[in-house]
């Protein structure tokens, strides 16, 4: 899944997979911080897979 998304042009920085148990609160905070940092670090801010306005009626 990750590979195909990257293949289509989604930046690796936007794709994160984690396994976090409900007891691992610190891991959750850690991962969330890393994810947001990675996404913010991207130069290309263009939104992908987001529909703004339909281009056709």
């Amino acid at each position, binding site marked *: *899944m*990750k*590979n*195909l*998304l*990257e*293949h*289509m*042009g*989604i*930046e*690796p920085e936007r794709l*994160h*997979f*984690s*396994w976090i148990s409900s007891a691992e609160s610190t891991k959750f905070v850690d*991962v969330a911080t*890393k994810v947001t940092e990675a996404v913010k670090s991207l130069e*290309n801010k263009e939104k*992908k*897979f*987001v*529909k703004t306005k*339909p*281009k*056709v009626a």
Partner: protein
Amino acid sequence: MKSYTEKIKEISKGLLEEGKVDMVIGYRKGSVPLMHQPFFAQNQQEIDEFVWDSNCGLNLANYVTDRQEKIGILATGCNSRNIATHIVEGKIKREQLYIIGIPCKGMLDRHKLAAMADGPITTVEEDEEKGTVTISGDGFSETVDKTEALQQNCSICVHRNPVIYDELVADEVKEQTRDEVDPYAGVKEIEAMSPEEKWAHFDDLLSACIRCYACRNACPLCYCPLCFVDESKPQWVGKSIDPTDVRTFHFLRAYHCAGRCTDCGACVRACPVGINVRDFTKKLEKDCFELYGWEAGMSTEQRPPLDTYKPDDPEEFIK
């Protein structure tokens, strides 16, 4: 491919006569050039309509889903692998089928030939001895080497001979090896691009898509009674030709084929606007080969990698 056609007719007639099958699924001449139709022959006269040449690129495994009859079916390398996948997935029983195996030398790329022609193609002739194909129409006629006119998936195919069959129509053909042809050359080209270039490549690829779903309908793997794109409660994906909707459709459809796609090329052949849908599925096929050593449909025993779990499955991507 006269010899193949005659042999196919002979075997099929025998099967019907002996009552071994209720019908034989093959091809008859299509209503447009380069596209022979899948055809269910149920009696001797209908068998006489059978043809075999390099225009039989639709995948016949698509037509046996959930059928109850006893069926004779033609199968090339890729078709036989899709039949095997159907058997593994419980869509047909091996005992119901009499598989007429066809060693295959590849199908013609109708989109490529149409692009070479100076107008609508009306006739296609193949010279087996010279290995050429001549397309002609109003005021033009062009002859090319068959190797140049092959569908891309056929030119890189490494399983031309059927993997399961009851009888072959001819001796096996020589297989191409992975050293001679690189099945993943096309995927590697895309892999080498930057994320922006990749995004643009797929934008461009899909720009002509009209969401007709011919690709899905031609695919033997897409047998769900109600496809996710047609569902409305809940609606998983927008139904318009907005680029985001189109991309979502293709991405998800491809993913449903992961580990099951045999790269038969029926989807591309069926597409009215000539989109190479395989740019999605071939990447998954490559990943399955590299991550799991898996090629779809090579046996009727093993289940595809994405519906099994092994303790040593790769999981580097999970942090």
